[in-house]
């Protein structure tokens, strides 16, 4: 049974065991507009929570994507390289960025669940 978390910086991660699939939220893709390029990390790279792990470019500007929790990259979504618009069309599913092997599941405690994130977005 997977659990979904969000950061205040609009990343999401879906945790299943000690692996988390990460992406940017639907709110984020909508705010960015047309996404034209995604720069992904390399498999094997290690990040602490909050490190810059990827870059997403909209037609207007580049934005950093941070690792929502610490860990090692075990897989990246290569489909985004040729079809970055997938982030616009399916931010929460097929538009995922990378999979992280979590180094400390305790870090998840600092994140929001979906209801809390929805309330956070409404407050912006």
């Amino acid at each position, binding site marked *: 049974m997977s659990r979904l978390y969000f950061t205040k910086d609009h990343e999401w991660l879906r945790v299943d065991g000690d692996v988390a699939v990460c992406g940017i939220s639907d709110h984020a893709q909508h*705010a960015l*507009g047309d996404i034209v*390029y995604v720069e992904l990390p390399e498999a094997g790279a290690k990040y602490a929570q909050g490190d810059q792990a990827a870059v997403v470019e909209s037609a207007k*500007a*580049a934005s950093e994507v941070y690792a929502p929790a610490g860990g090692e990259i075990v897989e990246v979504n290569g489909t985004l390289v040729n079809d*970055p618009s997938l982030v616009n069309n399916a931010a929460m599913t097929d538009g995922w960025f990378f999979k992280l092997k979590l180094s400390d599941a305790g870090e998840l405690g600092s994140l929001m669940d979906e209801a809390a994130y929805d309330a956070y977005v409404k407050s912006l």
Partner: protein
Amino acid sequence: MSGAEAQKVDVLERTPLYALNLELGGKMVPFAGYEMPVQFPAGIIKEHQHTREHAGLFDISHMGQILVTGVADVLAQLEKLMPGDFQELVPGEVRYSFLLNDEGGTCDDLMVTRPASPDEQNQAYIVVNASCKHGDLARLQRGLPGLKVEMLHDRALLALQGPKAAAALAHFCDAPNALKFMRAGKFNIAQMGECWISRSGYTGEDGFEISVPLATVEKFARLLLTVDGVMMIGLGARDSLRLEAGLSLYGHELTEDITPIEAGLTWAIGKRRRTAGGFVGARKIQAQLADGVQKKRVALRPEGRAVAREQTPILDTEGNTIGIVSSGTFGPSVNGPVALGFVPPAFAKVGTQVQLQIRGKNHPATIVSLPFVPHRYLRS
């Protein structure tokens, strides 16, 4: 994630289409002192493609419309301030030109129209950039003593661009029949008053710029939007359209430190003017025409999809910094990144391989010829 550009909102001006832009879902941003729509719900890429395939309507009412009135030789007077060959203009002809500083740097780029009507041959109509308009007005007033130089506060400005622009405008007036590229005239449009129309624009497509009385512009814009194929377009797509067309944007390819020669705009300086001079900045322009330039505007086509934005360093294949990107974006019609930048002439030849340093990584790029997307002006 981060990166949203937070801009301080001072007191911003609004164009007469502000309410319409909001109603259409425009995402308003500060631009040149105005609240302008950067995009509508369709998004920059769809708006861009729509303009290339159908017709885009642009609110460009933030731009300055200046009327110079005075004497029969008003065009000769203007030649003292600008390098355009205005005396060669026929009635109803439009010329792209510049206001230069004493060092040949560019204070603004603009369009000068010689009115078509025999009764108005003592006038010139000038459209200038929003960010420069107050400075331009002062410069023209200073440089043209004895002539009346006024900002037209009672007119708004629309651009209608794209392959269906002519058919759309033909519903309202004869301008599409009467005008070819870089020609202008005045047309009465039912219930809209007198509209000053030129066949020009900044997208590389066929199209028109339409000066409409302030009182009727919203009504006219709404009417144009009812025509099949016409859609409102924001500044985001305006920028990607002009960049693909290889057109310079003031503040990027043209600044007080960049001459038109360096910017690759020598074609806009009339042959007579190059030899005879007699305009502000002429000494530097003539020296550059004779001796060459230190930096030259080039077009860059990066490999891959990473976008080289403004200020991206340009490196040679050995990794030495040789220049800088002045404008860069994703080109929806090219379906890839496109950029303009400045390099020494030795690196400006089409086909030269260079590198672009994006977020610390070097990406290969090639110097290519302009435009990125062929122009489709109606020249004859």
